[in-house]
């Protein structure tokens, strides 16, 4: 069984690195938010370049500190659990947050499993009315279709920006998707079933073979069965 716990020291080192980076100041929110995403992209690229040697579990271990440092996974877990969060005990909340963090990290370890010249670029940052930031990025190159990832970030009281949601191709919110799933599982199975599903999902992601074509949610879901013909790529 893959150990999921990431050392506090590695997370602290990553966070210190982010805080020490130029531009990560409370006086320049767009730059500070973009810096967090740029740091995550650098970590993803680093793992991709060593993908074959690392394997899924190696990438999981390599990406763990970067993902836990960049994402506010506790906030994302609370948002995904939504109405159910209030009914969970403190211990259940901790277990859920930890399992969700491991699950999400495993997904990233699975998706970014090879390198063929891809690059990440930040396309822009905008600050929303509620003070959150949306940092647009595109992963392109490598001979495949480009993938746009919009990261939604919020700053805490100390003005540390962290990712609270990811929108794939501008419309598919990770939090909204997981909220829908969490609600179903918690309603019909309870917290134990949800924890088991997160654990088996993590295992499945780490058992996926590398270098198999793995398109992410690139296409409008409506057209999966629709008679409407989607646009030509």
């Amino acid at each position, binding site marked *: 069984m893959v150990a999921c716990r990431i050392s506090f020291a590695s997370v602290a080192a990553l966070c210190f690195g982010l805080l020490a980076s130029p531009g990560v100041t409370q006086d320049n929110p767009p730059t500070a938010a973009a810096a967090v995403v740029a740091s995550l992209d650098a970590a993803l690229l680093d793992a991709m370049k060593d993908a074959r040697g690392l394997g899924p579990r190696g990438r999981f271990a390599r990406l763990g500190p970067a993902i836990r440092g960049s994402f506010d996974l506790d906030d994302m877990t609370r948002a995904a659990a939504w109405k159910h969060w209030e009914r969970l005990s403190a211990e259940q909340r901790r277990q859920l947050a930890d399992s969700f963090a491991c699950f999400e990290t495993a997904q990233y370890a699975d998706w970014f499993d090879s390198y063929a010249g891809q690059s990440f670029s930040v396309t822009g940052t905008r600050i929303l009315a509620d003070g959150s930031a949306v940092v647009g990025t595109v992963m392109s190159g490598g001979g495949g279709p480009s993938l746009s990832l919009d990261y939604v970030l919020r700053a805490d009281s100390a003005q540390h920006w962290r990712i609270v949601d990811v929108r794939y191709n501008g419309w598919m919110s990770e939090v909204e998707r997981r909220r829908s*799933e969490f609600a179903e599982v918690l309603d019909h199975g309870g917290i134990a079933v949800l924890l088991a599903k997160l654990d088996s999902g993590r295992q499945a992601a780490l058992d996926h073979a590398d270098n198999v074509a793995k398109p992410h949610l690139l296409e409008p879901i409506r057209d999966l069965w629709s008679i409407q013909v989607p*646009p030509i790529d």
Partner: protein
Amino acid sequence: MRAGAGLLFILLVLTGCAAAPIGEAEDPFEPVNRHTQAGFLWLDDHVLHPVSDAYVGSVPEGVRRSIHNALANLGLPVVIVNDLLQGNLSLSASGLGRLAVNSTAGLGGLFDVAGDLGLKPHQADFGQTFGVWGIGEGPYLFLPFFGPSNPRDAVGTALGIAGNPLILLGGWEAAASVGGTTVSGALDSRARRSEALDRLRGESLDYYAALRAAYRQNRLYHIEQGRAGRPAD
């Protein structure tokens, strides 16, 4: 005219004018929807997926692309009309340009000459138009063959089928032609989405909930794009 007004009135009564948050789906028919999805997934696993794999394996990519182009060209009248109904005149003009160029220089739509000239494809449909007009989605439905939907989009889909130019043939020829293009479109769409579908299924904690959330988010995105006069890709 009266039938159209009556249809809109029924839609308004059924669907209202507000969309629930993505995580809180109006899904009173969930047990039936789940059974329908399960049945369709069985059909997909045992019929559609193998047939689409055979289609991809046996039909050269260039021929598949031409078939896709021709089907897309047949769908353009619906796109053009809906752009107009949404007040997106420039998008409508673009669609009209694509239809004119591809139907002539593109040999009946087999070749996307318009795309090479900078007239990029985009989507527009009656369900999107109703959403732009403020008609709510109503309860989530999983329809046999058509997949994820809701009353608003189901009516839109029906109108889209009726908008197939082959309807003009009349009689059995129309039914056969429209049915043929519908099946071809589904096969084409399934072949193009095969890996993304499998991916979504593999990553899901609850595939039904994930698909429902993805569908609703995607439709919301399309409606927002339509309101803003931007092409929905």
